[in-house]
């Protein structure tokens, strides 16, 4: 009860700011759906082959859909330049050293694209398997790129990321023998952590297995 001299009162707000991350991602999904764009979030360590795989996907899909790429590399434009030579629009986003993309950063990237003119948006996330797991950007599918050169324990060491991916690619299987990595074992590990995930093996550099990735993504 406010006393006579006091004209103060309470305003109930009850807003949980920690839910903002997923709300932003949901809003991105809505915007993408409005414009009929499908979005794929590509995740994986630095050097696992994300950019190479994205180029392979573009090669295969370019004849039947128009594609744009958001490249989230931390500081350089190298990846963007590698993709631009394919003639698809690339938006380079500077995360300013941040270890992940988030819904807000991706939204700003989307605003620089003509969404009505594209069917597929591929987002190359920052090369880190820890933080991006907690930050949905608003993509229809999450594609996780592991490579045998990262050793045999990638799946068990990053269970949260594996659980949140829809498709896992095990790349660079041409190097499995040299690395003494058992690819079947790695695939089994991935499936054990996430029984619903689709697992595909590739040699992205040579275009091997790309068609399987396309199928697994439902594209």
């Amino acid at each position, binding site marked *: 009860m406010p006393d006579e001299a006091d*004209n*103060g*009162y*309470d*305003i*109930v*707000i*009850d*807003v*949980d*700011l*920690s*839910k*903002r*991350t*997923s*709300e932003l*991602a*949901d809003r991105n*999904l809505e915007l993408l*759906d409005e414009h009929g764009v*499908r979005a794929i979030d590509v995740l994986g360590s630095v050097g696992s082959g994300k950019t190479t795989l994205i180029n392979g996907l573009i090669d295969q899909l370019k004849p039947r859909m128009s594609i744009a790429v958001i490249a989230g590399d931390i500081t350089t434009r190298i990846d963007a330049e590698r993709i631009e030579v394919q003639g698809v629009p690339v938006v380079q986003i500077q995360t300013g050293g*941040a*270890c*992940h993309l*988030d*819904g807000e950063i991706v939204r700003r990237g989307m605003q620089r694209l003509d969404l009505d003119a594209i069917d597929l948006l591929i987002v190359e996330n920052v090369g880190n398997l*820890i*933080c991006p*797991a*907690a*930050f*949905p950007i*608003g*993509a*229809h*599918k999450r594609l996780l790129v592991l490579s045998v050169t990262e050793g045999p324990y990638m799946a068990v060491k990053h*269970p*949260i990321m594996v*659980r*949140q991916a*829809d498709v896992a690619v095990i790349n660079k299987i041409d190097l499995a023998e040299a690395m003494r990595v058992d690819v079947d074992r790695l695939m089994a590990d991935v499936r054990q952590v996430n029984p619903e995930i689709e697992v595909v093996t590739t040699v992205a550099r040579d275009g091997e297995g790309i068609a399987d990735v396309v199928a697994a993504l*439902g594209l």
Partner: protein
Amino acid sequence: MRATARESRTWWRPWGCESMHDVTAARQIARTVLQAAEQQGAGRVEKVRIVLGAMQMIDPEQLEFWLEQILRGSAGEGAEIEIRRNPLTVRCRACGWEGELEVPDDPIYHLMPWIPECPACRAEELQVLGGDELTVESIRVREAEGADEDA
């Protein structure tokens, strides 16, 4: 193929990420508070009530400090900041155990995920019931100068 932002699966937050750290969190709180006060035509904000979940890895003293700094020169300058801490409470999806878990205070978890397990059956499939929030609950405000007295 409309999927989701998977809120239900994304309950873990890495400590190393700045996204919800002290300054960012303080900025978001300040924005939320000042917006609400303005919408209601309030004059000054006298008190801000916040619930801070243990999973947020935010130091309450840092949060208070930054919030005070950010509110300077606004309608919220000098407001009392009340922070209520909420422990991590979970329910095990495997065995149904329900209770509070201690969030470890170890810098290693800035670099790698902390994966809590059920104290009863060791399962890692835990549903978070509380303790992951950063909620602006309510504010106490004073009517703007010259506003009519409520009858």
